[in-house]
């Protein structure tokens, strides 16, 4: 009899100076979303239904970088992407360039279930969403004031990073900006070209194995703050940000380039499949050996009910629970 397990994340690459109240808020949201998944699993829901439901919760809450609360493109708009994979049969669905669909992960699922394709993007994806009757809203729904400010800082940081001696125009002593300059100068923690204090941990995700031993994974994001319009990251790419098969289900987060070139999600499963490593060892191996200079994290569950996570950067918002009663949320190592 298989045991269920669930892991969720709200992004890797957390500012070590993140204020206490923000940390508490994040943990509350993680705990709430984790509970949604746990309740569904206890009621016998399938892995696929659970990952979709949980990621919908994470998208809807503005706390993390997906759905509402997504990071902004350099044009100040939101372009979201998501993918979902059913470990049973390795069916998959993905979307990119979504700008009005309230829950991108559900659109990804529709692509998988109701279209002859696996991946739809931009106008085609938006059109399909309307055909399918999914809930659509104005792009402004996804934009939070906080991210508007963060975008401004990111734009400045992107130029600061190349010459921190340039005086900051109109520099009010915004603590984040000051920290950014300091971040570049002293502790220097940078992810995806942004100082960690400005970097918005990308992506939310969920990996589940249900009580029948079937796995599923889903990942959703607004992407990189200040990204070029049309930029696609790892989240909608099967094998990079998301993967599920009989052995395990994986969802990744962090520097998209590093995750793509290391095909991180697929590699965890490949190492289990081809080298026979158990889940935690596979996760550790991939995080340690496959990322080189890149920063990323991932969550994973195995077909046999284990749960694992790993990251090589400063923190990953995460939560895990398994049928034996284990349940925790965390941010740091």
């Amino acid at each position: 009899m298989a045991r269920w397990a669930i892991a969720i994340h709200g992004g890797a690459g957390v500012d070590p100076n993140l204020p206490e109240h923000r940390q508490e808020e994040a943990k509350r949201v993680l705990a709430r979303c984790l509970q949604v998944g746990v309740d569904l699993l206890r009621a016998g829901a399938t892995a696929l239904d659970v990952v979709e439901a949980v990621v919908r919760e994470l998208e809807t809450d503005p706390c993390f970088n997906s759905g509402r609360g997504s990071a902004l493109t350099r044009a100040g708009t939101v372009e979201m992407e998501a993918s979902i994979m059913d470990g049973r049969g390795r069916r998959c669905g993905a979307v990119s360039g979504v700008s009005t669909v309230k829950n991108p992960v559900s659109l990804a699922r529709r692509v998988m279930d109701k279209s002859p394709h696996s991946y739809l993007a931009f106008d085609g994806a938006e059109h399909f969403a309307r055909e399918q009757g999914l809930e659509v809203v104005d792009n402004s729904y996804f934009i939070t004031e906080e991210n508007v400010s963060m975008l401004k800082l990111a734009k400045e940081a992107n130029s600061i990073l190349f010459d921190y001696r340039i005086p900051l125009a109109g520099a009010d002593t915004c603590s984040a900006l000051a920290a950014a300059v300091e971040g570049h100068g002293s502790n220097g923690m940078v992810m995806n070209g942004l100082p960690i204090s400005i970097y918005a941990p990308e992506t939310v995700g969920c990996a589940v194995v249900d009580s029948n031993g079937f796995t599923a994974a889903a990942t959703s994001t607004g992407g990189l703050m200040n990204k070029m319009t049309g930029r696609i990251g790892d989240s909608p790419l099967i094998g990079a940000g998301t993967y599920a098969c009989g052995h395990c289900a994986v969802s990744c987060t962090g520097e998209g380039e590093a995750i793509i070139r290391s095909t991180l999600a697929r590699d965890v499963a490949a190492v289990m499949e081809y080298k026979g490593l158990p889940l935690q060892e596979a996760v550790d191996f991939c995080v340690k050996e496959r990322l080189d200079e890149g920063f990323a994290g991932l969550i994973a569950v195995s077909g046999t009910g284990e749960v694992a996570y790993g990251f090589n950067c400063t923190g990953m918002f995460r939560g895990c629970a398994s049928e034996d009663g284990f349940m925790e949320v965390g941010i740091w190592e």
Partner: protein
Amino acid sequence: EEEPGRADPTVPTIELLQGGAGGWTIELVAGADRPMGWAIALHGGAGDIPRTLPPERREPRLATLRRCLDLGAAALRAGRSALDVVELVVRELEDCPHFNAGKGSVLTSDGTVEMEASVMDGTDMRCGAVSGLSTVVNPISLARLVMDKTPHIYLAFDGAEAFARDQGVEIRDQSHFITEENIERLRNAKEANRVQIDYTQYNYTQPIQAPNDDDNSRTGTVGCVAVDASGGLASATSTGGLVNKMAGRVGDTPVIGAGTYANALCAVSTTGKGEDIIRHTVARDVVAVMEHRGLPLEEAAARVVAGVPRGSVGLVAVSAAGEVTMAYNTTGMFRACATEDGHSEVAIWPA
């Protein structure tokens, strides 16, 4: 160290040494001299290519494959990098209207062209990809520019088109890419779908069919892999996608690990049914099987291809040791390869 099954001691080979904690290292064991030989392989699409394919549909493609093979081999002999070579070969294939890439791309259900491509440099595993292009003459070169000139890996649709103009690459009106052949293919495909609706309960999830397509496969993606004189590897793939695809549909070609992959050990470019190639992470898996199971190139490729539904995939691959394999589980695959020791081949069906 034992090297089982190695007949010719002058042929370079690769050792996979088990490290601690499940890690591995690659050691390149050279033959009589280093550097190792260059090798190149290219494809123009795998699919249900009937042996009855008339000469006028066969010869132009074979001629292009031969020409591209010669171009690529000459560049390798001249010491060009694998990355430069795969790009230049794929550019030629894109420019040829007989393949489903660049000019000659198949059409979406709207009758438009949406091209995609990706490139990966095995020496440092940098990569670049583009999707949703409708005016860029050489998508593979734009993919390379994404890799070389932006902090990103993948740009698509309007953003990619804007970047193309930023970079000043050659653009043409969309009509430049559309051929009579492809207008005909789209018409056939739509007819087939209409027939399906008339006779059966319409099932939206059925694969799009083009039953009277006595031409070649509906997915004549192009690609090239190479290993250069220094042992550097690269892969490039380009396509117009699937006939009658939904606008916005992205296939395996721009997805690193599915359509394209390269590292220090091996470079792979795939063709076939995108949806299957994505879920089976074909390009990555060939290399993963070599890395983790220690299988030689040919066996690894054959094994991965056998694991994907029949009739859905073909690939070309080269290894750092200068080996080449061209594997497919379809009726045929337009393909060509050459190695430094003088072996070369241009073919469609099994020997």
